[in-house]
């Protein structure tokens, strides 16, 4: 924040950084070879709905905005217990999943909703269960970085596995360096 903003007590809205989203494809190969993790076929986009026409208010508006086929049940929209909206996409192909999420992001940015985006989440599960346990890769929209999230219960996470994922993916992905930003997303609707 600049000096002028400090003096006048203003904050600028932060635009999302979508550049690094496609880096996930190479990371997926590493995940499979090193940790035997493959895509769960689910990805999600988390954002905060605001009020007003410039912002989307109802689920219908969002679906229309993102141009969903109503007969297509690949996409669902839910609200979590903190009031954030989740757009959950089902697709067995990771590339398609990333493309879909990126398209939704771009569409929201075009409608001036970029500042409302929080994160995108991609699920990864052991190819041969039980394996090491499942991991979500979370893409922080504003920071343009990824971090692993491996919940093991209602409010427990497997930090050891998360740190191992980081060590394997640090060359493929821009991993969030600030560990305090590895936000816990309990009860997230993406598996």
């Amino acid at each position, binding site marked *: *924040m600049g000096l002028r*903003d*400090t*003096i*006048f*007590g*203003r*904050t600028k*809205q*932060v635009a999302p950084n979508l550049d690094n989203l496609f880096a996930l494809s190479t990371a997926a190969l590493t995940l499979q070879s090193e940790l035997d993790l493959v895509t769960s076929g689910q990805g999600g986009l988390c954002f*905060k*709905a*605001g*009020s*007003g*026409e*410039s*912002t989307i208010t109802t689920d219908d508006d969002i679906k229309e905005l993102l141009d969903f086929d109503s007969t297509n049940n690949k996409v669902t929209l839910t609200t979590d*217990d*903190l*009031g*954030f909206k989740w757009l959950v996409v089902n697709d067995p192909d990771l590339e398609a999943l990333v493309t879909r999420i990126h398209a939704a992001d771009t569409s929201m940015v075009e409608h001036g909703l970029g*500042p*409302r985006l*929080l*994160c995108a989440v991609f699920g990864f599960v052991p190819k041969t269960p039980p394996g090491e346990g499942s991991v979500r890769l979370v893409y*922080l929209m*504003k*920071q343009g970085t990824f971090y692993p999230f491996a919940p093991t219960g209602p*409010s427990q996470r497997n930090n050891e596995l998360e740190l191992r994922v980081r060590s394997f993916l640090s060359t493929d992905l821009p991993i969030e360096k600030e560990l*305090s*930003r590895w*936000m*816990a997303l*309990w009860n997230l609707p993406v598996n």
Partner: protein
Amino acid sequence: MAKTKIESDHGLNVRMFLTGLGLVALYAIIVSVMLSLGVSVVLVVIIAGALIFSQYYFSDKVAMFAMHAHEVTPQQEPRLHEIVDRLCLLANMEKPRVGVSEMDMPNAFATGRNPNHAVICATRGIMNRLNDEELEAVLAHELSHVAHRDVAVMTIASGVGMLAGLVSRIALFGAMFGGGGGRGRGGQNIVLLEMATMLVSIVIYFIAFLLTMALSRYRELAADRSGAILIGKPSVLASALVHVTGDIGKIPRTDLRKSEGMNAFFFAPALAPGTAANLFSTHPSLERRLDQLNKLEKELNG
């Protein structure tokens, strides 16, 4: 001053105003005494500067101590941390430390000398009274204070006011002895001049005090605005304000007095509504704040 005993029915804001004025007068007297004792001007400025600086540097510790607040881990307060986490990531800002005050008075505050040393704190009272969405709105307001560096801005503002008073004091003091020396004036003249000097510096301190209060109110409105934009729903912040301010009026004043010193960094001033003389208030009136949020809501609705 004839009577220093101020009944609570005069309104808590009168008390606060007199406290501020008293501090200002005290400060002027201390400086005068130091100067007349022959302490060098440089040393006086250094001492005054050190006082202001320590107030700024230890703002987080002082505020946490005064509010009986303690830092909490994500394990202790998962909900609060989750809300702050998301707001910080949404706004792309450093996550401040998170604290809870066990007080039942519904309030929240943010303090700390810079965003890296910031603490955001909610009382148990506000967490019990507001729903998650409203609590999020309140925390967004407090995070805006952190982003706007309001602790630094307000410290500088009050420091500049003190400095202005101090400089005028020194200038008049110097003029008095420089011009009046060796003319054989009576002792009474000196006393009169001394009193006039004191009066001028008190007036300057007083003006600085009023300006600081005005600035504080402006910063509150700015934080309301940024907070409302961050969560995208000005109406939710408005609803939280109504709940918090409405509740405060019901709480016995004896409980509130304890935290008056904290007013500048509170979400809602710890005063009963209706007693606030606007000019001396650190926070804008509820009407003013709701008005702004209402306008913002209309703007968002196009």
